[in-house]
């Protein structure tokens, strides 16, 4: 019979609360009522498939025929965009995670699962492309012999740290939603799941700490990569502070990615937004941006490179573009705290992240000038592979948010979902969600009605 775990009184109180006050994100709830497979999803899969086919061609033909890379520009967009830029954008597990766990901004726990998922997908896709971009990937096995590492190489740092981070701490941090799904799936799994959870929580501090130390190290080492290139990186970008600036850019970009993506999902799937949490995230992002811009400006001034920003060349153009995007985004975020306009906030996130992306892209490509006669422009195949792997990440995201509790929502949303699976889609019993929620006062009647219709 009725297996709802709540007495009706508490339930009604909660419902009343939710209706009366501003929406609060209290629980991660799967997106329900939308099919995973739709036209957009199929298109994403098609692009991913195409990317894999082209990857096969690349493995046989070599890098020359498929890419625009040359002796002067040894790195193409697979490394400079998909790895250096997109893992920065996907550093949410680091930047958004460190805020509640280390700096005790507890409200941001609500965004945690979004941050962990986006990071995992960004890193997984980035690492895959790193493997495809490597000319001799079979030699990656040296990664398991620490005494063969070149400990002082920034690239070794990046390759080793990133693979360890994505496969161990970040993957483990993403386990709780999976365990939760199993817990609801079948009551017979529950003792095992609970035991595993207890064990996981015991080790959690060590895992989470590694999940902040490692990205802190490799996101800054991504900046250190270009230090060795010396003069060939334009003086507006080449700086001993590159590692810190890269880390800072990753921080505000990933806030933008996590909060912005959450807002977008809320609009797309018609969920309430918790302005208290979003305001806090926007405030932190704005401060990060202002601090970062200050450091960047001071660095440029003290190195005496400010003059080059006023030359009429492409470098100055890129510099002002990224600076205005980041500053404008920061200003809009700051403004949205006063006006409480979600549109301004969202635009602020988009602009600042875009600026950050250009910043992280510049030292390797836009502001890299190995010699005057060489040029690099990605070929169609390069762009398709790069895009295909982004599509794979997006498809993975769409699949996971519809099957696991990732997106934050008001408590009421959970009950709605449980009711949805109980009454509207009684045949989807396998989710297990249908028996955990407060449905309504006349639940018993509806249940009986349902059983009547079932027996017909």
């Amino acid at each position, binding site marked *: 019979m009725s297996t709802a775990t709540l007495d009706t009184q508490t339930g009604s109180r909660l419902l009343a609360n939710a209706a009366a006050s501003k929406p609060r994100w209290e*629980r991660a709830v799967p997106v329900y009522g939308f099919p995973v497979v739709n036209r957009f999803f199929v298109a994403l899969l098609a692009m991913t498939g195409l990317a894999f086919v082209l990857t096969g061609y690349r493995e046989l033909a070599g890098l020359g025929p498929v890419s625009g890379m040359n002796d002067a520009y040894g790195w193409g967009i697979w490394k400079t965009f998909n790895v250096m830029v997109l893992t920065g954008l996907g550093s949410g597990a680091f930047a958004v995670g460190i805020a509640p766990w280390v700096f005790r901004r507890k409200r941001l726990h609500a965004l945690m699962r979004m941050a962990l998922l986006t990071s995992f997908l960004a890193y997984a896709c980035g690492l895959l492309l790193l493997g495809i971009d490597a000319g001799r990937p079979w030699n990656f096995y040296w*990664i398991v012999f620490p005494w063969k590492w070149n400990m002082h190489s920034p690239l070794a740092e990046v390759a080793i740290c990133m693979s360890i981070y994505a496969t161990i701490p970040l993957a483990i941090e993403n386990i709780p939603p999976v365990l939760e799904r199993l817990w609801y799936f079948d009551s017979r799994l529950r003792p095992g799941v609970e035991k595993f959870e207890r064990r996981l929580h015991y080790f959690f501090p060590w895992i989470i*700490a590694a999940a902040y*130390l490692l990205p802190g190290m490799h996101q800054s080492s991504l900046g250190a990569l270009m230090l060795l290139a*010396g003069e060939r990186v334009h003086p507006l970008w080449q700086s001993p502070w590159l590692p810190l600036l890269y880390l800072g850019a990753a921080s505000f970009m990933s806030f933008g990615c996590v909060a912005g993506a959450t807002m977008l999902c809320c609009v797309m799937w018609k969920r309430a937004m918790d302005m208290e949490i979003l305001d806090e995230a926007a405030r932190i992002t704005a401060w990060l941006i202002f601090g970062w811009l200050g450091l960047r400006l001071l660095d440029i001034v003290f190195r005496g490179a400010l003059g080059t920003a006023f030359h009429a060349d492409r470098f100055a153009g890129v510099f002002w573009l990224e600076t205005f995007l980041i500053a404008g985004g920061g200003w809009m975020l700051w403004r949205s705290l006063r006006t409480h306009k979600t549109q301004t906030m969202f635009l602020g996130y988009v602009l600042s992240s875009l600026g950050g992306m250009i910043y992280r892209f510049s030292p390797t490509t836009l502001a890299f000038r190995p010699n005057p006669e060489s040029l690099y422009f990605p070929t169609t195949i390069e762009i398709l592979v790069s895009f295909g792997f982004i599509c794979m990440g997006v498809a993975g995201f769409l699949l996971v948010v519809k099957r696991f509790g990732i997106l934050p929502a008001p408590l009421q949303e959970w009950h709605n979902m449980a009711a949805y699976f109980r009454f509207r889609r009684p045949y989807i019993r396998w989710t297990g969600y249908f028996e955990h929620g407060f449905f309504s006062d006349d639940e018993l009647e509806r249940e009986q009605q349902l059983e009547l219709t079932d027996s017909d």
Partner: protein
Amino acid sequence: MAITRRELFVSIGKAGIPAAVALTVGAETLQAETIPIPSAAVGLLYDASICIGCKACVAACAEANDTPPDTRGDQLHQAPSDLNDLTRNVIKLYKPEDGSAFSYVKRQCMHCLDPACAAGCPFQALHKDPESGIVKWDSDKCIGCRYCTITCPYHVPRFQWMGFNPRVTKCELCSPRLEKGLQPGCTSVCPTGAVIFGPRTVLLSEAHSRIKKEPGRYYQGRVYGEKDNGGTQSLYLSRVAFEKLGLPELGPESVPARTLRWQRRLYQYFALPAVLYVSLVQVIRKSLKGHEQEAHEHEKETGLRAQL
């Protein structure tokens, strides 16, 4: 509840004191770090003022390294315009428009005493031979990341863009020939002795004696590579400015020492990351306790399973 002031000070103390110790220890060792010159360092001395640009060395280099001649320019002559996937050694011509002094230049690996390519190479595929000081490439360790093509200040290592098994090509001073007691391909054929092979010390004194013999003949009266970029094992003498020949003025400090100083200091003995890790664990452990408690309270209140 944000982090309290007391807690902040305590964690800074916990993390900071060992960190400070680690940093000072690290700093001392780093200051003592000088670039060791390999005991049996060998190299090349190229005198651009004697070179007649016959390119015999280019052909000999390809032959010695068992590479097909690069005739991709006109399908007939072995005339590569720059170092590339088939060319480890090339002769280039610097000829200014205004008719002032022109010069040939031979480009090959400089075999730096502190090579930037090896500093960046993730699994030590490019490494400096501890005895001869030759910068060698190991096909078993190279992952083909092409970081060497970006880091080398002389832009020497080149990547083979074609095929599923690409290699990095650069001058390895004909190491197999040296083992057999032969000279490198390029020096064995040079008709004018513009490029000679020998121990670095001998080459240096030879270069200095040439400068002494004819003061004013050579640019700035100095040997490029004696101190430049921390010292190199390929040495250059020239009448025209080294920069015009593609040998940038990098200063006496090597590129890795100059740019990765802080990187190296921060990761010295892995001490600082370890200290940071332990203090992070302490802070997070406390946060986790609080968060778990809140989650369970919330669970009691809502009747729904806690989400962590």
